[in-house]
């Protein structure tokens, strides 16, 4: 696709006899929320790991911003602008909210090997961190230790840390998990705004949330993408209904 930010081409990955990724191709284009759905064991996590780094495909390629990143590490892909949030919050739990955001800013600025100047007094790092916290509405909580945050706030902080990287694309693993109706709605509104800055590849279990916010949906079953399309197309696709929505025949 022409304006594809992230493009996955014919990825194959086997664990012994199990084909977890069986020739998967997928595109994330500018300005969209692209949801990836599929039943348990369909190979969603395996695919995400190959896109984010940390797991190398047996064959096929991953391109990000027009560059082949198949052989690049997780950290390298992050520095290129791949922002990531996790299903179970991956945060430094003993750090304050601000420290977590500064950690993101440190990674972004490449100042990891500065040994002498205090990080929490560096105006550039603090400004970047606070900008990200502002965006998600955590600006009044910056001194709170992360382990004391509510589940929803941790999700917000996850997004804020990813935002410090000024990502060119987001990879979000079940951001709505455990959020509650109100929180889910707020997050959906926020993602609708965010997608204009950087497209979002969303892995999500919550069907209502997916149908509410996704521009396109890809359905992964047994390591293969059986359909890609708009919400309506996926809803009415008979194959999807059988394989995933658990219906024999459309009524």
């Amino acid at each position: 696709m022409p304006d594809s930010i992230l493009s996955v081409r014919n990825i194959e990955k086997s664990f012994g006899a199990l084909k977890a990724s069986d020739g998967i191709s997928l595109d994330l284009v500018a300005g969209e929320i692209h949801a990836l759905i599929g039943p348990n064991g369909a190979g969603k996590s395996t695919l995400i790991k190959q896109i984010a780094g940390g797991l190398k495909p047996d064959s096929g390629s991953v391109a990000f911003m027009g560059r082949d990143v198949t052989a690049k590490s997780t950290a390298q892909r992050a520095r290129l602008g791949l922002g990531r949030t996790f299903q179970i919050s991956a945060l430094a739990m003993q750090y304050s909210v601000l420290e977590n955001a500064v950690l993101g800013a440190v990674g972004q600025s490449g100042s990891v090997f500065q040994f002498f100047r205090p990080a929490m007094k560096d105006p550039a790092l603090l400004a970047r961190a606070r900008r990200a916290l502002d965006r998600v509405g955590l600006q009044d909580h910056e001194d709170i230790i992360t382990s004391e945050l509510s589940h929803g706030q941790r999700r917000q902080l996850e997004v804020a840390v990813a935002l410090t990287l000024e990502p060119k694309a987001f990879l979000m693993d079940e951001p709505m998990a455990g959020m509650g109706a109100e929180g889910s709605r707020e997050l959906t509104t926020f993602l609708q705004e965010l997608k204009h800055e950087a497209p979002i590849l969303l892995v999500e279990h919550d069907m209502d949330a997916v149908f509410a916010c996704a521009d396109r949906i890809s359905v992964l079953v047994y390591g293969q993408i059986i359909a890609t399309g708009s919400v309506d197309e996926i809803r009415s696709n008979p194959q999807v209904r059988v394989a995933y929505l658990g219906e024999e025949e459309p009524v």
Partner: protein
Amino acid sequence: MIRERYLNMMVLALLVLVPAYAVLMDEPFTITLATRAVIFALAGVGLNLALGQGGLVSFGHAAYFGMGGYAMGILASHAQNYEPLMEVPFVIEGTNSMPVIWLVAIVASALLALLIGALSLRTTGVYFIMVTLAFGQMFYYFTISWPAYGGEDGLSIYVRNQFPGLNTLDPIQFYGICFVLLLAVLYGVNRLNKSPFGLALNGAHQNEERALTVGINVYRLRLVAFVISGAITGLAGALFADLNRFVSPTMFSWGVSGEIMIFIILGGVARLFGPVVGAAVYIMLEHFLGGLSEYWFIYLGVILLFVVLFAKGGIIGGLSKKETRHAG
């Protein structure tokens, strides 16, 4: 409950007052004990950077302690015997100058930590502990079987090495040197902990995935921390050898690795002054309990168990309230 910073100040005050008192009362043995405590503290501060901040449980820091010790032993023994270390292709003489010996000890143990770290940091958890332990033991057996520098019997240096302008054989002056070095290293490590490097190192300890996904090369980060950690412990080894005017393979033994770890656990993991308090308490226990019974390790075990079970954050953690990181 007091603030950790005030507690640290009190520890420093004690490290000044006790030796001063010993000078007034003319008790050189007390000064020697204090010197041991300060040197062990320095070794612990080194390990604490890897273990406390980085979460890298190295059970082989005796390798750097011993490396520092042998750097001193080898250089000083050549100076003592007026034999150059090597003559081809160019002449390298031994030396009895402390600053030169420290520099060599630091560089040698940093290189060793680079080598051991580069290999062992590819593993995690129990495997990391076992690999670092194995490397430490490798050096232990190597020094035992290497006859050039005393083998199993070790190496005696008859005169303490020189420091410009000081009489290093005077216990309090040698104590002063060790104490100032400890202060300098504590200052540096404190800055390091608060720097972007320290934030990233501890952040990667708390959540490796997060560090990776903000673009931090965690392997390289840990390797650098491991090298700095080994270099500090190596410096302590050189001082320890100078204190005893003797080096032996024992400095490389796993027991030493364990002792350094005990200082940290006793005093407080990842606390700046944890190893300082831990080493001081350890030396006191060794002196007083060791005088009562040969089996004083049993009591040490009980105390250690008590600290681990009931005082979260060791002695420092038990006595002080938590200080937020960016308050300082």
